[in-house]
């Protein structure tokens, strides 16, 4: 049995590189062994001290855990204080935006003490706003017509009571008084009035809104009425002088010379059996009161519309006619 001798493996490029590398490494190692040991080569003492000192300073100036806790505690305190401030500011702002009901009612009462007509408007609007029982009764059935009639009667009785009681002052403050007065005024009214008061209690927001609208209207009316009352001074029958024919003619001549915008106006204050009491509004914003004998003069009232309603007779401007002319 013959066996072929194994051929030695042919060296590859990789093996050659490895051999070369090992030889180079051995050469360099041999060179380094010939070199003297360079133990004396080291950084200076001055550099050593600088570096060690820097290392100690870095550790010494490091913030401790206690400081971190303090910072955290102050952080939470500052956050809580900021939140409290913001919330209080918001609450304060909202209180300015929506004043309480009593305040708005006081505004109304202070401006409405002498204006019964404006009170009437406000109360009528309030009654219309909160009277929810009437539509329900109308929609129920024909058999309920009697109930609807009863409701109208109750409202007719209730409204005057409310005009006297609610309007001049705060509505909320007067609710109990309204109930008592209505109960005394009419035995038919208590049920309807109680329902109205209940609705007012349950819907303060609506009432506030309505109060603001009424307040605006009332203030407008008051301004006009105040101007009227300012111009018309109270008349004392004893001191008012009689308008003579000569004075009357002088006024008429002056009036004829004035332009249409500045014409003299005459207002009837009161009427007696034998005379009229008038006020003349002069062009320089002054007034003069006179008594006109019915034997000499006759008055034609000129209805003037204010606020879509005719004002009372004494507020009307009058046309003076001389009977003997």
């Amino acid at each position, binding site marked *: 049995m013959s066996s072929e001798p194994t051929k030695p493996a042919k060296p590859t490029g990789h093996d050659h*590189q490895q051999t*070369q*590398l090992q030889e*180079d*490494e051995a*050469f*360099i190692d*041999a*060179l*380094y062994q*010939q*070199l*003297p040991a*360079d133990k*004396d*080569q*080291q*950084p*200076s003492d001055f*550099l*050593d001290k*600088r*570096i*060690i000192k*820097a*290392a*100690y300073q*870095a*550790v*010494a100036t*490091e913030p401790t855990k206690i400081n971190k806790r303090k910072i955290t505690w102050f952080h939470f305190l500052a956050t809580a204080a900021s939140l409290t401030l913001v919330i209080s500011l918001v609450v304060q702002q909202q209180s300015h935006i929506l004043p309480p009901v009593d305040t708005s009612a006081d505004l109304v009462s202070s401006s409405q003490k002498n204006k019964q007509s404006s009170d009437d408007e406000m109360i009528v609007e309030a009654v219309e706003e909160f009277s929810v029982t009437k539509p329900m009764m109308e929609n129920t059935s024909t058999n309920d017509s009697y109930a609807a009639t009863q409701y109208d009667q109750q409202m007719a009785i209730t409204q005057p009571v409310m005009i006297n009681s609610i309007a001049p002052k705060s509505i909320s403050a007067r609710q109990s008084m309204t109930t008592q007065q209505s109960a005394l005024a009419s035995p038919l009214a208590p049920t309807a009035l109680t329902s109205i008061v209940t609705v007012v209690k349950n819907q303060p927001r609506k009432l506030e809104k309505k109060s603001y609208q009424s307040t605006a209207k009332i203030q407008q009316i008051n301004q006009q009425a105040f101007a009227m009352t300012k111009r018309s001074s109270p008349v004392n029958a004893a001191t008012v002088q009689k308008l003579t024919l000569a004075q009357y003619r002088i006024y008429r001549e002056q009036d004829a010379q004035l332009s249409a915008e500045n014409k003299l106006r005459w207002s009837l204050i009161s009427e007696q059996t034998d005379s009229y009491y008038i006020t003349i509004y002069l062009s320089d914003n002054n007034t003069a009161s006179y008594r006109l004998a019915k034997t000499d003069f006759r008055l034609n009232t000129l209805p003037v519309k204010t606020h879509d309603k005719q004002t009372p007779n004494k507020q009307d401007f009058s046309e003076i006619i001389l009977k003997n002319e």
Partner: protein
Amino acid sequence: MTQAELALKNIDKQLVDHDVTDEALMITYAKGDASAFEQLYQRHKRVIFHFFIKQGLSTAIAEELCHDTWLKLINARKNYQISAQFRTYLFTIARNTLIDHKNKKSSQKEEAHADLTKTAIALKETETSNQQRQLAQALTANIAALPDAQREVFLLKQESGFSIDQIAKITTQHKEKVKSSWRYALQRLRKGLSDYVI
């Protein structure tokens, strides 16, 4: 306490200190014990200084870069993780410091080399033979003549004793590229120093 007891205690302390690893010392220093840093510094100050000296820099510049390197380590003590080998971490900082220096002083490179050949390898003539002094100067000159990548790999492996894998980690290069640089550096040095073969 007698002098014998004190001496025994110092021996014990040295043994304990020797057993503590670099990584443990660094963690201890990061927690606030500055004495741990002193031990670390004593262990590695020389290799770091040599790393810069062998780069062809003057003693003054090498000390300046040593100072910067250790300061960076001090400032980065909180970021150190025990998973990284301390020597690798330290030499990575040293290498980055060197790169920054080269970027700043690239125009003064030749001047520094000339200075280096005179000062960095200032062997004491009284203690070394003339042949050894010539060999040292020739080695330093040949190392300085290597390309930057090859010189860096050669010094890390031959002078600092890092493995190819560690050098690849320090220089953030591929392992094969590090091997290649090592091989070419050896070939160049062997060719330049062939006259000094004993």
